[in-house]
């Protein structure tokens, strides 16, 4: 499912920076629905907040 690229920090409301992707072969919970057959796993993306340093993880947009 397509997702918005910009993630808002749940802690302080700042726009987070998407800085990493990682392939998970053992998806957890709801991420399993984002299984990518071509990559043989779930592509996750990671966002960090420039204001408070919080991190967020979610299935990648593409």
């Amino acid at each position, binding site marked *: 499912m397509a997702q918005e690229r910009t993630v808002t920090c749940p802690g302080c409301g700042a726009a987070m920076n998407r800085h*990493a992707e990682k392939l998970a072969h053992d998806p957890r919970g709801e991420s399993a629905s984002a299984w990518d057959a071509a990559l043989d796993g779930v592509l996750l993306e990671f966002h960090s907040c420039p204001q408070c340093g919080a991190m967020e993880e979610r299935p990648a947009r593409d």
Partner: protein
Amino acid sequence: MPDSPRPLFIPVVIGTARQGRASEDVARFVMEAVRARPGVETQLVDVREIRISVTDAGESIEDAGFGRTVLRADGLILVVPEYNHGYPGLLKCLLDTIRKEYIHKAVGICGVSAGPWGGTRVIENLLPVLRELGLVTIFWDGNFANVGKLFDAKGAILDATYERRIDKFLKELIWMATVLRHGRENVPLP
């Protein structure tokens, strides 16, 4: 010197729970060296104090306190004894419980051994694990050799050369943690 108003946070993890562990003296020595650095905060993380199941893995057994500590961290220092050339299983179980908290953060390893090699073999064995977790390893290590003779009864280090060695290790780790924080928070993935 960190360029952010937030101090860097670099916890020190004691990677063994065994009775009589010499790694505790090493961890306290390293932690005091971190505390002496301006703009850097630290905390001791003791695997002995964290209760996790060894019959499961991942977030289902995640310790919330450990997760919060690593989430806040900009880097980690792992103090790891070499047991038959390997790392303690309990440390591996703990490391495997979280994921996002590690991504693009710096890590340095202090190997501890009863013999003369200072944990070089456990460091080499641990590097691919840390890479897979998403951590970024530095190229300085701490090598605490002959650890049974390295500290006095009060835990004070007896070999002054370790002060200079850990200084080099921390300089590299702090540089890497500073750069990676900037990257995490400001440099988007292309």
